[in-house]
């Protein structure tokens, strides 16, 4: 596998092998793996433990060592081949360089994840997203979204202030489970005795139990179809501000497909976040298939992301080109698992609006709160309701 492996290792060759091995973790890092500085020495240690003469042994061992999450696990084999196999074995990758025309070929290997370093156009940050991205074909991509506005200063400040307040409010939401605390509603005997020990058995301080505060998890589902284009920027900004405040929040955007954006939202570098979103939203602005997207969410993400403390916030105008029944079924399934489903409809404050669109009518029986939200002022008004409905 390594070109040098069949010969007895002379000092020079051993050095070359070592350098090649040590470079592997750097290569993975450039491909978006969460490997750190100490890992290249770990690679060498592992290689000396395992030996490099048997190709699969080294692959399996390094896979266990360097992967840390399912997305990395599924991409590893292809990256390993690219790095260690002679270049001509992977010649077909040349054709997959154009970022816009990616299709997701199979769950295990996406072609963009196996580019050799230096071939990529977008840099390391983009490729990290590859496994979760459902890039659309050219036909679907009516226009590329411009998220450059995401960083405009004044409005962002307002949004951030509001989201900080919202996050603070959320931290006050309590659950029924109890925990020890210094001031509470129920006396904690074991805790008090434990505290008394430091005073030689005199219960000088009393320990109480009270309901634990737990921040609910939030799952944001943002509609970025064309009918929503007026509001999408605003809501993405809002999502980004909220991601900065809360740790347990997951974002998705959908139009005809569903795409996870949590990672892009959380990127500390605003510019890079824009770039990522830009890539992610390829194909946005088309029609909406809310029901299908929700079903996709239920199938692929609900198991991991939605638990009994999760509030699902859907932002959409409810104009669905799919079957209303699909939407109703998907919402019903989601409702069983989530704590609350909140639907924010930006156009519901328009005069004469009533939930008559087929999508909205199908959704209404399954949602806990239908809130308006055309701009910051409206959002400010409905935040108390949203908090209240999380309890």
């Amino acid at each position, binding site marked *: 596998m390594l070109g040098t492996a069949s010969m007895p290792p002379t000092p020079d060759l051993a050095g070359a092998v070592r350098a090649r091995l040590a470079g592997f973790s750097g290569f993975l890092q450039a491909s978006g793996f969460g490997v750190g500085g100490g890992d290249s020495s770990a690679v060498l240690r592992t290689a000396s433990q395992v030996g490099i003469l048997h190709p699969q*042994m080294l692959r399996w061992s390094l896979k266990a060592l360097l992967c840390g999450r399912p997305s990395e696990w599924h991409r590893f084999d292809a990256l390993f081949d690219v790095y260690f196999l002679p270049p001509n074995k992977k010649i077909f990758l040349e054709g997959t360089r154009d970022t816009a025309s990616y299709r997701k070929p199979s769950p295990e290997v996406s072609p963009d994840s196996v580019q050799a370093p230096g071939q990529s156009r977008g840099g390391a940050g983009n490729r990290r997203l590859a496994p979760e991205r459902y890039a659309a074909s050219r036909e679907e991509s009516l226009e590329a979204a411009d998220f450059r506005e995401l960083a405009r200063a004044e409005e962002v400040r307002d949004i951030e202030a509001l989201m900080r307040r919202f996050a603070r409010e959320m931290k006050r939401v309590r659950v029924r489970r109890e925990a020890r605390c210094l001031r509470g509603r129920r006396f904690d005997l074991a805790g008090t005795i434990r505290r008394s020990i430091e005073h030689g058995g005199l219960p000088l301080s009393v320990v109480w139990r009270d309901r*634990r505060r737990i921040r609910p998890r939030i799952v944001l589902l943002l509609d970025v179809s064309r009918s929503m284009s007026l509001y999408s920027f605003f809501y993405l900004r809002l999502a980004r501000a909220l991601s900065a405040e809360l740790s347990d929040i997951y974002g998705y955007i959908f139009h005809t497909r569903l795409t996870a954006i949590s990672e892009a939202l959380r990127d500390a570098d605003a510019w890079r976040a824009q770039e990522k979103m830009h890539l992610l939203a390829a194909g946005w602005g088309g029609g909406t298939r809310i029901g299908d997207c929700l079903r996709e969410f239920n199938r692929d993400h609900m198991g991991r992301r939605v638990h009994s403390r999760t509030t699902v916030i859907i932002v959409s105008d409810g104009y669905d080109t799919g079957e209303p029944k699909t939407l109703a079924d998907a919402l019903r399934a989601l409702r069983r698992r989530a704590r609350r489903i909140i639907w924010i409809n930006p156009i519901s404050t328009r005069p004469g609006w009533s939930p008559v669109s087929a999508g909205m009518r199908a959704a209404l029986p399954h949602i806990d709160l239908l809130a308006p939200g055309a701009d910051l002022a409206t959002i400010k008004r409905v935040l108390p309701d949203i908090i209240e409905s999380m309890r």
Partner: protein
Amino acid sequence: MSTGAQRVADVAALQQQLAAVGYIAERSFAAALLLMTELKRPLLLEGDAGVGKTEVAKALAAVRGTRLIRLQCYEGLDAHSAMYEWNYQRQLLAIKLLEQDDRSVAAKEQDIFSERYLLKRPLLEAISCTHSPVLLIDEVDRADEAFEAYLLELLSDFQMSIPELGTVTALSVPLVVVTSNGTRELSDALRRRCLYQFVEYPSFEKELAILEIRAPEAAGELARQVVQFVQDARRMDLQKRPGIAETLDWTAALLRLGVTAIGQDASEAILETLAALIKTRDDRTAFTREVVGRMAAAC
């Protein structure tokens, strides 16, 4: 560097040992397990429910002939209940009894905070074994982030401090297996500490091998058909895809009804026993008589 052939033999040997205690592992998985015992790193297992993550720890303990210490994580689990607790009631009783005692106060205190009054919880238990045990930290994603951070500290230097007793250092480094169902994103720090394996649903051959070991009563043809049926079911759009445990349960149920082969005529028995395989109502409605008949015929 060790020779490749030697390594392959070592891994194959481990694989056979695992098979001998009833756990079928792929070669790649055995290689990772071997590496884990050599590097003394924890092993993080992720994958859908029912793919046999917990079984790994059990099999590992059986192969090495050591104890399996299990810490089941749950929401609200705190360091205390995972590590140690003082037996307050006994301590109180002891304080009362020692009032008549004429030893010095310091001696009494030392007595009250001796190991006799210490309730060992799994983590302390695991590092106070002389013979390195297997520590299974099950479903770590259910515990809070705070606990995860604490766990990280323990896993990096294998010692914990008990204020009244001092620092307890591990007598032997336990083999740690951490499992996660992915209900919460684990911290990068924990992921980096661990070796990682993503456990998939078993392939046809692997599941057949498991069934033959675990349910030898199911004769060759029935086992093959059962596995085929379950593999087909997993490809359907189900909320809860059946795991290996479900396959075993279902096989037992079929045997109980005296089914010897899955075919058109057995679809009645299949429908009756489907509860062992399909665990939600929505999924159950997908298995109509026609669907079951078609799937059975295809086996």
